[in-house]
């Protein structure tokens, strides 16, 4: 799946396939709503990996078989799910104690914009859309590691990877890694946004052209 996914024609499939490489055995991971939820299928084979759902479940299992769905058992995207052996249920305050208290190893969230400072905007478009931040602000403030996955440009071809976010922020200097269909960037605590990987078949010029943010080149990546 991994290799094939990385070469898929669809940008979102490639992003998810690359993001799946971030999942590690024996860790606790929170997957955001939308594209990140697709990563659940990649977590199956990893021993000891537990998926956290902020509505009160540690140990999300696969979707139920038809007829076995239970309205009392959903994920944070309100989808019917199951619970794995060893799962636990808890209330929302305890769930966010896990998040805020730094007990979640990795949060993978969708984004609308990411800035070169590692700021994230993903919850509101003023005057157009108001959905609310849900648990996203808590996750970016509390998870040990925050990975954002998103398409590199807007549907109109505009920049999403920006010098400064133009949309209301979810968190300031919170992103550790950004994965798009073109590239992977890291945001070191001291230092500048750094390009660390080019997606297969993508060259540096293409990334530079599609990216408003200024970034440095990681080891092994050289300018033209």
């Amino acid at each position, binding site marked *: 799946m991994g290799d094939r996914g990385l070469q898929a024609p669809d940008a979102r499939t490639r992003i998810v396939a690359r993001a799946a490489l971030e999942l590690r055995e024996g860790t606790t991971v929170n997957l955001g709503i939308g594209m990140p939820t697709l990563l659940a299928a990649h977590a199956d084979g990893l021993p000891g990996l537990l998926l956290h759902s902020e509505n009160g479940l540690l140990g999300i299992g696969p979707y139920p078989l038809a007829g076995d769905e239970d309205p009392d058992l959903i994920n944070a995207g309100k*989808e019917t799910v199951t619970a794995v052996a060893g799962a636990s249920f808890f209330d929302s305050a305890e769930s966010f104690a896990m998040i805020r208290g730094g007990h979640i190893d990795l949060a993978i969230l969708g984004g609308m914009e990411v800035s070169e400072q590692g700021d994230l905007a993903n919850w509101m478009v003023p005057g157009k859309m108001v959905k609310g931040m849900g648990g996203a602000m808590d996750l970016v403030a509390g998870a040990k590691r925050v990975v954002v996955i998103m398409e590199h440009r807007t549907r109109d071809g505009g920049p999403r990877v920006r010098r400064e976010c133009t949309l209301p922020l979810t968190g300031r200097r919170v992103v550790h890694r950004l994965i798009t269909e073109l590239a992977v960037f890291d945001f070191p605590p001291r230092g500048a946004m750094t390009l660390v990987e080019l997606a297969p078949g993508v060259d540096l010029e293409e990334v530079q052209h599609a990216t408003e943010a200024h970034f440095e080149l990681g080891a092994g990546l050289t300018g033209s």
Partner: protein
Amino acid sequence: MSAAKVVGSFVEAVADIEDRATLIVGGFGLCGVPEKAIAAVAQKGVRELTVVSNNCGVDDFGLGVLLANGQIARMVASYVGENSIFEAQYMSGELEVELVPQGTLAERLRAAGAGIPGFYTATGVGTQVAEGKESREFDGRTYLLERALGGEFALVKAWRGDALGNLVYRDTARNFNPLAAMAGAVTIAEVEELVDVGELDPNQIHTPGIFVQRILVGSGYEKPIERLRVREA
């Protein structure tokens, strides 16, 4: 004495909820929502309510019904993306909205019930959520002061309960319900099954009855599924 908590009908349970009341309502999406009490509030027709709940139902179910009836003046929630009436009323200014990060909302409710007037959290620092709030640095990191959030009434839904108000929830239907129960001055709990006092294992009680003032059994729960997902056999 204990039986004094058991009320005979949902009409009776919500009888003293008046216009401009604040209601703290449990549930996450359509999961674990006190659907019978919400229906009774809709029927009573009280208006200008302040409602505190993680979400606001969907257009035709849960809190969405109160919204469609124009009964809610102010909503405090973390995520309202599934409700077109909400969006329309918010955009037109008809509905006042306070969006609160989900974990902050949960903790504000818990704090209200726990006698803690406020707490510091890093959630929302550097965002709109921080505007107008006191901030303070602890060990080199900035935190916001968030205030406790309680209300006159809480509406909660549990799986099983007894006449003392002890509650047990099922799976992820627990969510905000225990916190809403703590935050309400008068907490009205509806349960699928009301069992004899002593039948619930004290080791397994999620909300001790001290947080519940009224309890009653609901029947014919609809429990609609918001997003049905299944896998191939």
